[in-house]
């Protein structure tokens, strides 16, 4: 896991630095959004593939899918609610709509 995290960090920083220093061609920067979207869909498709290929997941869905579904809805909702409260009342920097990426 640590190797992966380091690799992700290096790639993010490398991309960021090259772009920040103006070493990336403007044409590529303009197309970065479309390229990102392409890889994003490929990645989501592969994630779907992995779920479909994993018979353990499919079998588990039939047996305890309901309970797990309720757990996932509650954990994700309360997580978002806490961040909403903290960002609204403590951080007070709610960046919704500011500088949204629009490719």
């Amino acid at each position, binding site marked *: 896991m640590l190797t992966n995290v380091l690799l992700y960090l290096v790639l993010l920083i490398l*991309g960021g630095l090259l772009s920040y220093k103006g070493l990336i061609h403007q044409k590529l920067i303009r197309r970065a959004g479309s390229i990102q979207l392409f890889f994003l869909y490929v*990645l989501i498709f592969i994630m779907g593939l992995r779920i479909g290929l994993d*018979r353990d997941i499919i079998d588990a869905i039939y047996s305890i899918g309901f309970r797990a579904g309720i757990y996932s809805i509650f954990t994700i909702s309360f997580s978002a609610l806490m961040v909403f409260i903290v960002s609204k009342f403590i951080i007070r920097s709610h960046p919704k709509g500011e500088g949204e990426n629009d490719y």
Partner: protein
Amino acid sequence: MTIKILLVLISGVATGMFLLEPEFMANTDILLDVGLCLLLFFVGIDIGNNKKAFVHLKKTGIKLLLIPISAAVGSIIGGMIISIFFGMNIFEGGAIGAGFGWYSLSAILIAPYSAEISTIAFLTNVFREILAIIFIPIVAKHIGFFETIALGGATSMDTTLPIITRNTNSETAVVSFVSGLLMSIFVPILVPLFIALI
């Protein structure tokens, strides 16, 4: 975007279920790694190109660490509350909630305690990732950018980071990576802690 994401995800699941053999799984590891690396490089390009993001980040500073902490606390509370409805021990619910979307590790950590809870944790976190993929664009549009990080949990530093970046801004993308990293560190600490408290 949500509908497109959902369609792509469903096509992937259907292809995996009906068209491919389970042995293909090994190939998806490489594909996922390569795809993720390329994607993260382009996310980096995007972030570096938006110099204003760093000014914003500097201004808000250390307070941004509250994002992963509150996301973690919320997830655990959510898990504990629902465990009461299912007649389970609240710390079992806490352990499931503390997976933060990292399904493989949370299930492995819980497995020595209970195979059933381990499977629930595994599936809960698989569903969490799917829900995050579907709802990040909606939450970004109607609620706020930082809340998308809560949806991604530990995956907001890798698999859901591109979706967060795509639907929010560069500042949120940086906070997302740091939050995902911290929440990933929390998982192997908090899951065994809750198991010990049962």
